[in-house]
């Protein structure tokens, strides 16, 4: 039942925020904050009580917690929620970033506060739903549903670019990209369901049943096409390079809280989807697809990094760097070794921290300078108290300096992939050089160099300091002691590896150079 509450709390909180607006500006903010803190506390409570490392050894059930109820009996659709180590980490991340998103928009949003928080919390609720649902219909339901509030967030509270109308264009682009690719996933899901129907005579959207069908009943060609349907949907959200068109615009125009949600958790739903659905449902097809995915990953790493170097808009730069980081995630996912998969989990968490940190910093700079154009910045080191130092830490984290969480994640991904794909690792490592370049660009252009003006800008207030230092502490904690995180996701990742390697033996020799 607690799983249901995890989903319901943000939705209810959102409605309360909306209605609380009539009592003034502050109540919606406090209610939103309280809701997300409650959510976070619940997740941490669940984490504290369960043991997530042991399940693989027991072998019987993969899920620590499970909840199901009939929903649409006609098609055997159930409200089927389940939690394992991977979803737990993701939900905890959602709760944490939800708190951050509420806090960082405390002063930024001054119009229609109630409606803003309604959208913000509904996104988070939808994301939690995505992480918990293992009925494919329910998964798709949440997957599509969370786009609507995100659309409103960008379209209504976004920053307009130079040509006035762009935030709506960005939001529309985001929505159409993700929705259309989502429909492809729906087609793939239905293809799977009807294959199941043909084999057993009954409809079901259940994960277990469909996994069984997918591995036993499908012709390889069919499996390939269905896998592609899933992959494209996830690849758009992730984003993988040829399908990334919406991301820079959406990030550049979104309000800070929107960017934090987008980079921190919406992108992670894609990686989660691959780990939970695309790979386990179609291990053979995924294995055959791995070389392509690796190629796309490398392309993403370099494309994102090179374009990041050329940006003037701070948020666009961070957005492109996200594409680059997601390239590593993609490589890690498709290498299929436990080490690399563990690295993927850490990297997702680390990227959520570092990218949200950087986006929040851009938001804070925007509040003070009313621009995100780096050409108009420069010499801020002496003008803002506190912020530049913190920014340096997050930039270092994004670069993957040892001691930060990103280092652990990237190192594990590359280390785990090296065995089977040494050349991929060699080439991908080149991405670090570019990462260093764009990261140093940020520091150089924003904080050093000649100052445009000498007047000091307002320093960080208590809210901002607590928020940034807290986030920084998490980055360092995961960077220095990733043990608890790795332990939590261990069982889930072992499962994925087991599924991948069952079919791996015959397929691999031709592909290893």
């Amino acid at each position: 039942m607690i799983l249901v509450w995890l989903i319901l709390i943000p939705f209810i909180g959102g409605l309360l925020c909306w209605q609380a607006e009539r009592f003034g500006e502050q109540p919606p903010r406090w209610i939103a904050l309280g809701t997300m803190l409650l959510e976070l506390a619940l997740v941490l409570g669940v984490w504290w009580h369960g043991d997530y490392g042991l399940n693989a050894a027991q072998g019987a059930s993969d899920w620590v917690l499970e909840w199901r109820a009939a929903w649409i009996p006609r098609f055997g659709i159930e409200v089927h929620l389940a939690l394992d180590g991977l979803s737990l980490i993701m939900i905890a991340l959602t709760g944490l970033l939800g708190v951050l998103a509420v806090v960082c928009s405390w002063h930024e949003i001054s119009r229609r506060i109630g409606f803003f928080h309604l959208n913000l919390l509904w996104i988070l609720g939808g994301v939690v739903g995505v992480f918990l649902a293992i009925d494919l219909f329910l998964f798709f339901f949440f997957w599509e549903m969370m786009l609507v509030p995100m659309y409103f967030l960008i379209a209504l509270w976004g920053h307009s670019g130079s040509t006035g109308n762009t935030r709506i264009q960005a939001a529309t682009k985001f929505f159409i990209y993700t929705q259309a690719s989502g429909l492809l996933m729906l087609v793939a899901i239905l293809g799977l369901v009807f294959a199941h129907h043909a084999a057993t005579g009954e409809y079901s959207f259940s994960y277990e049943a469909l996994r069984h069908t997918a591995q036993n009943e499908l012709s390889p060609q069919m499996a390939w096409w269905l896998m592609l349907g899933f992959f494209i949907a996830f690849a758009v959200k992730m984003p993988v390079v040829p399908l990334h068109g919406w991301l820079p615009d959406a990030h550049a125009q979104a309000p800070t809280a929107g960017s934090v949600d987008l980079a921190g958790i919406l992108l992670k739903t894609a990686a989660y989807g691959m780990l939970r659905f695309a790979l386990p449902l179609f291990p053979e097809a995924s294995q055959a697809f791995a070389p392509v995915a690796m190629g796309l990953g490398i392309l993403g790493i370099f494309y994102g990094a090179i374009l990041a170097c050329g940006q003037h808009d701070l948020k666009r730069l961070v957005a492109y760097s996200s594409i680059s980081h997601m390239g590593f995630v993609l490589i890690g996912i498709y290498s299929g070794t436990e080490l690399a998969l563990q690295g993927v989990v850490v990297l997702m968490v680390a990227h959520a921290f570092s990218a949200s940190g950087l986006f929040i910093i851009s938001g804070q700079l925007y509040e003070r300078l009313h621009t995100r154009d780096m050409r108009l910045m420069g010499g801020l080191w002496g003008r803002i108290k506190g912020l530049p130092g913190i920014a340096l830490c997050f930039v270092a984290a994004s670069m993957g300096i040892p001691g930060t969480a990103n280092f652990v994640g990237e190192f594990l991904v590359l280390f785990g992939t090296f065995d089977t794909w040494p050349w991929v690792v060699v080439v991908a490592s080149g991405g670090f050089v570019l990462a260093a370049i764009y990261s140093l660009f940020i520091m150089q252009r924003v904080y050093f160099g000649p100052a445009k003006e000498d007047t000091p800008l307002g320093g960080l207030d208590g809210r901002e300091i607590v928020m940034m230092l807290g986030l920084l502490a998490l980055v360092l904690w995961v960077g220095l002691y990733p043990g608890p995180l790795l332990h939590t996701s261990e069982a889930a990742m072992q499962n994925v590896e087991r599924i991948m390697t069952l079919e791996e033996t015959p397929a691999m020799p031709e592909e290893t150079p």
Partner: protein
Amino acid sequence: MTSLLALSPLILVCATAIVVMLTIAWRRCYDLTATLTVIGLNLALAAQLLAWWQAPLDVTLLMTVDGLSIFGGVLILVATLACATLGHAYLEGARGPREEYYLLLLCAAAGGIALVSSRHLASLFFSLELLSMPLYGMLAYTYRERGALEAGVKYMVLSAAASAFLLFGMALLYARTGHLDFAGLGEALASAGSDGWLLAGMGMMLIGLGFKLSIVPFHLWTPDVYEGSPAPAATFLASASKVAVLIVLLRLLQSAPATQDAWFHSLLAVLAFVTMLAGNLLALMQQDLKRLLGYSSIAHFGYLLVALVINEGLAVETAGIYLVTYVLTTLGAFGVVTLLSSPYGGADASRLHHYRGLFWRRPYLTAVLTVMMLSLAGIPLTAGFIGKFYIVAVGVEASRWWLVGAVVAGSAIGLFYYLRVMVTLFLPEPGMQRRDATTDWAQRAGGVVVLALAALVVLLGVYPAPMIDWVRLMAAT
């Protein structure tokens, strides 16, 4: 007696029409007329239950009462009730006679109910005309408006041409087979094999019915008529009239399995494909909400045609579900337009800029329209999603990948203009001239109807099981 009971909804609607006519002749009283109409329609709706106990039953050679006809009858009556309620507020400001609107509405509803239960080409033609004729009057009801008059005349002329095609097609079929009832016709077609005259006859009938459903390439009247006509009449045209015609088309296709002739079949598939894409593409740049809804309804009937083309497995259920979601959503969307345009005073508030910033003035009304747009776009949490899900499912089940591809592409294109409408509602208003709903809209009957529709759309989107069960029950008999 059982036959009378089975036909009681139709009889009640006709009786109400006569009563309303006599009342108008006796004394003009707007509120009385409206009340009588609503009471009559509600009685007819309740009488569907009586009809359900008798079903399935063939009443004479012309009519049949079965699940499908009751399903269609309920949808038509609900749509008519909504149109009557919405029309009440709308016409309050109209000059000239206002009571006859209800008379026309009732006649059209009777035509629709007769159409869904016809099983004979004669009753098909008769009831189709009974459905269309009053519509000419309704569409041109505010005839002082140039657009309305144009809409009425345009619909009348084109509709007459389409009827001519329909008649010609029937004549050809009769000449070759000697049957006018659907069942006999179906058997004759099955045994006749491929015959040029029969194909021509079926093709001409398809033109006639396709015109009413505004299937591309017979869609040219739709946007103009939607745009020009008074909102309640457009609502009826978009909901009840289309439901009735689609159901009779479904019945025709079902009773004549030989129409699954390869040639005819691929023709239908091509029409569905073109309709989906053209409807959505043409809607992209519209600046008028009613026009946009017109194009969007073209696209939606393209999706529905997918179910008709496949015509096996889940197809009937899909058509039923999609019709329910489409009717609810269309009623809601047009309802909001009607509320904003009532009471009548000049052309309807249908330009998109009328809706700029509506959210900051009328948040709940905007919420309704937003829900309807999301539902038309097929986004989860709304009934439209269930409909879209069914359409994709039926396409995947039959492995018609081209049609599925067109559904996906059409939906993606469709998002663009639905989102445009949605975001317009929320944009800060620039202080241009605007129309607004009356302040007490939510307490008025029309407002209640619209709010209830929105609630229903969300409810069925979240928990569609009752709707699915009902449609299956209806499809089973």
